């Protein structure tokens, strides 16, 4: 079943079967979002579960399937912010939102290096836009920001990354090889 059908089926029918299909379609993406935003595997999976419990409870609030992905990631982001707020006093040794080195994060090392050069709000944008493929409309819904602000921030991300890539030894080495 295509993603759009999965979403429509869940919003229209709200059956356990439709919820399971929705979970299968989005759980990997939500877990990956949390991992890329600096959470360990156990916490990423806990928060993924929290998000789906909220989706189940709040699905009645959403009528338009086209808004689902933005709405889903807005819930995910709120869960993450609440988590950071609760955990901040306990963690002093590193910035909570810095990407962490988990054993199964090897494929994401290049991206996490890039994310380290960005502000937390910009990391959200990058992960949601470039990894999860959210449209500008969906980003505006997820981050509760006007579309112009989203575009302006994306442009700033491009500029920041261009500057950091100019001084990156790994990139200079790749260019030399090529």
């Amino acid at each position: 079943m295509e993603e759009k059908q999965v979403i429509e089926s869940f919003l229209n029918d709200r059956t356990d079967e439709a919820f399971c299909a929705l979970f299968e379609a989005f759980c990997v993406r939500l877990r990956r979002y949390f991992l890329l935003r600096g959470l360990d595997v156990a916490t990423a999976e806990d928060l993924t579960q929290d998000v789906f419990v909220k989706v189940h409870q709040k699905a009645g609030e959403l009528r338009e399937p086209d808004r689902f992905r933005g709405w889903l990631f807005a819930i995910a982001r709120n869960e993450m912010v609440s988590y950071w707020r609760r955990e901040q006093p306990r963690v002093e040794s590193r910035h909570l939102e810095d990407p962490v080195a988990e054993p199964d994060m090897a494929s994401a090392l290049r991206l996490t290096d890039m994310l380290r050069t960005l502000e937390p709000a910009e990391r959200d944008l990058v992960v949601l836009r470039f990894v999860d493929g959210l449209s500008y409309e969906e980003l505006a819904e997820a981050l509760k920001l006007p579309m112009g602000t989203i575009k302006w921030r994306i442009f700033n991300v491009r500029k920041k990354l261009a500057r950091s890539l100019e001084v990156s030894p790994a990139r200079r080495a790749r260019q030399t090889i090529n």
Partner: protein
Amino acid sequence: MSKMKHGISELEWNDYLDGRGTVELRDRIEAHMIGCLECWQLYERLSDATRELVEASEEARSGLPLEDRRMHAMLRGIFSRIRSGPTKSHIEGRLNLLEGVLTPFCGSQAALSALHAAAQKSPARSLDRVTPDNWAPFLENLSAIATAMCGATFAGLIRESGQL
């Protein structure tokens, strides 16, 4: 917010780099770049950065797998929470209430520290993992901390406020 340089705004550059601009915008930027080395170099740098970002994002997307076994365990956990009594949101609400009761007596930092300490000493081991199942020992620890901080009467208030 969006600066204009050489007649091209940052939002227009962004649309152009995304391939979202109108035909008119594309023609205007491309005609300008033919005669402007500065803008051509800006475009090269930004499109390089975008390409790197897209490639790195594709790598990340293809990795970070989740085993079926783990996925099913998560789904079972979700259904169990949906169908059980107090949910995580009840717990969060109760934690917020307890923080609100503690704060006027000992300040917001000490209130949060007390909640964390109570959780750490309980089977939950961290505030984030306090659930309806391990709520009772957590609340007992918090009451003990409240007794030490402000006496038995205050601890009674904490115990009362913390009932699910």
